[in-house]
């Protein structure tokens, strides 16, 4: 069994449509967080989000699919097209049972769902779209991607909130290791409608601030919660041996993965993020000194930030490893966040540079070396990505640069 590698990437991000634009904007520290324009958020406790405003759906999605897809599925279809093209692979040339897709989802299609529920309650059942039968399901991105590209191998979806993005990639890796030739993975979430925002506000973790420069401040004394965003990334995973035979460019390796679940509140036991990290490091057969950068979950909720910082301090020592959260430029993308962080980690390793965290003044108490202001040179060949899901999910993933992929 050889390594599982990433051969294609498609990105939909508030600060850049497509991998190149996203990476360039991220290195520039360009934030896309601004006042919500999809609806008037004036009377809502939350008014800011990272919106994808430059996606013209008819440029990227076939006409037949537009009426039956929520915005998140439209993003996912475009990103899957780009990832497949980027991987220089034609799915039609492989047996369809040898092609799969494993995605994650946090909220399904809230915008589509809200619209149809409005039809139901204000006009009656006869006015509800037939496509409501699937358009807002968690699994619909995987389903539509599979139909579009003729993928009839392993298909699945993970619903573990923000941790799902890593859980899906790890499961896709299992399928590649099990012999599937090509597996698409990653996630896209978009929930910036009144119904979506109301549901998110209920978590109590969203920032009420109205100034985009002051709203999402992880590891900062002035933290007030996070800002939501939409988007994510779709990746193609293949066995390294196959990728080399095909002579396709390899971005890097999905080298290690670990997942853990927190004990119930009031149990007297702490969170288990540390165990997820240790499992991922062991799975990748690396030690903490091999990790060049950590892409933090960065909830910007003090209790959660402390738990994350503590786990890192215990394993790496205080200030023992550079940490960054480019999601301060996009908002938290829910299931899309970690796949985008994995992509960003691969870019950072490729180009030898760590993108910055923006707007934050790191609080000393956290004991972490946060990369703020400017990008910083990176030395090393492995990165750690963390993702924690509401309700107790903790996942960690180690990615390795292309140059360091094991044979």
């Amino acid at each position, binding site marked *: 069994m050889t390594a599982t590698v990433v051969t294609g990437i498609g990105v939909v991000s508030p600060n850049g449509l497509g991998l190149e634009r996203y990476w360039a904007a991220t290195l520039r520290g360009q934030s896309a967080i601004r006042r919500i324009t999809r609806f008037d958020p004036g009377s809502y406790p939350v008014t800011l989000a990272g919106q994808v405003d430059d996606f013209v759906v008819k440029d990227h999605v076939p006409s*037949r*699919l537009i009426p*039956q897809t929520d915005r998140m599925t439209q993003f996912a279809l475009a990103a899957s097209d780009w990832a497949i093209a980027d991987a220089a692979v034609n799915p039609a040339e492989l047996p369809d049972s040898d092609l799969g897709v494993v995605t994650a989802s946090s909220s399904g299609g809230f915008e589509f769902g809200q619209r149809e529920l409005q039809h139901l309650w204000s006009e009656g059942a006869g006015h509800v*779209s037939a*496509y409501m*039968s699937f358009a807002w399901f968690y699994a619909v991105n995987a389903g539509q991607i599979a139909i579009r590209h003729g993928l009839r191998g392993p298909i699945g979806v993970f619903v573990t909130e923000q941790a799902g993005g890593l859980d899906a990639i790890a499961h896709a890796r299992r399928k590649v290791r099990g012999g599937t030739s090509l597996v698409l993975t990653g996630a896209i979430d978009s929930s910036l409608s009144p119904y979506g925002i109301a549901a998110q506000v209920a978590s109590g973790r969203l920032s009420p601030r109205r100034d985009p420069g002051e709203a999402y401040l992880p590891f900062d004394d002035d933290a007030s919660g996070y800002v939501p965003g939409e988007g994510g990334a779709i990746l193609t995973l293949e066995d390294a041996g196959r990728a080399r035979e095909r002579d396709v460019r390899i971005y890097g390796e999905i080298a290690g993965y670990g997942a853990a679940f927190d004990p119930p509140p009031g149990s007297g036991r702490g969170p288990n993020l540390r165990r997820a990290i240790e499992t991922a490091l062991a799975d990748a057969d690396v030690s903490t000194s091999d990790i060049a950068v950590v892409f933090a979950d960065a909830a910007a909720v003090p209790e959660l930030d402390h738990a994350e910082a503590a786990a890192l301090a215990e394993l790496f020592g205080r200030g023992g490893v550079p940490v960054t959260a480019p999601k301060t430029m996009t908002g938290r993308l829910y299931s899309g966040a970690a796949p985008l962080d994995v992509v960003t980690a691969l870019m950072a390793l490729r180009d030898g540079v760590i993108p910055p965290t923006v707007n934050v003044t790191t609080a000393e108490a956290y004991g972490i070396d946060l990369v703020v202001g400017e990008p910083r040179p990176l030395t090393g060949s492995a990165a750690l990505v963390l993702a924690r899901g509401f309700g107790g999910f903790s996942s960690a993933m180690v990615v390795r640069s292309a140059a360091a992929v094991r044979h």
Partner: protein
Amino acid sequence: MTEFSLDDLMRILRECAGEDETVDFGNDVGAVDFDQLGYDSLALMEASSRVARGFRVELPEAELAEVGTPAEFVALVNRSLRRQGTAEVRAGG
């Protein structure tokens, strides 16, 4: 009495289910299978719901299930409209 046309149907299908830009059958579209036009059972369900509301006609589900081409769909709609018209006349309307 209202007549439902092929143009009406294709317009409604386009509106509620988009269209496959790669195919163009022109005026012969009536005889082409819905599969070939890229319209699956949900698209037809959606279209029939719009037709039912827009033309105030009930389309029996069993008969709708037998429809395979646009021409057959149009025939079903007009058959149903005539049936309804006859029923209304008999009811003294």
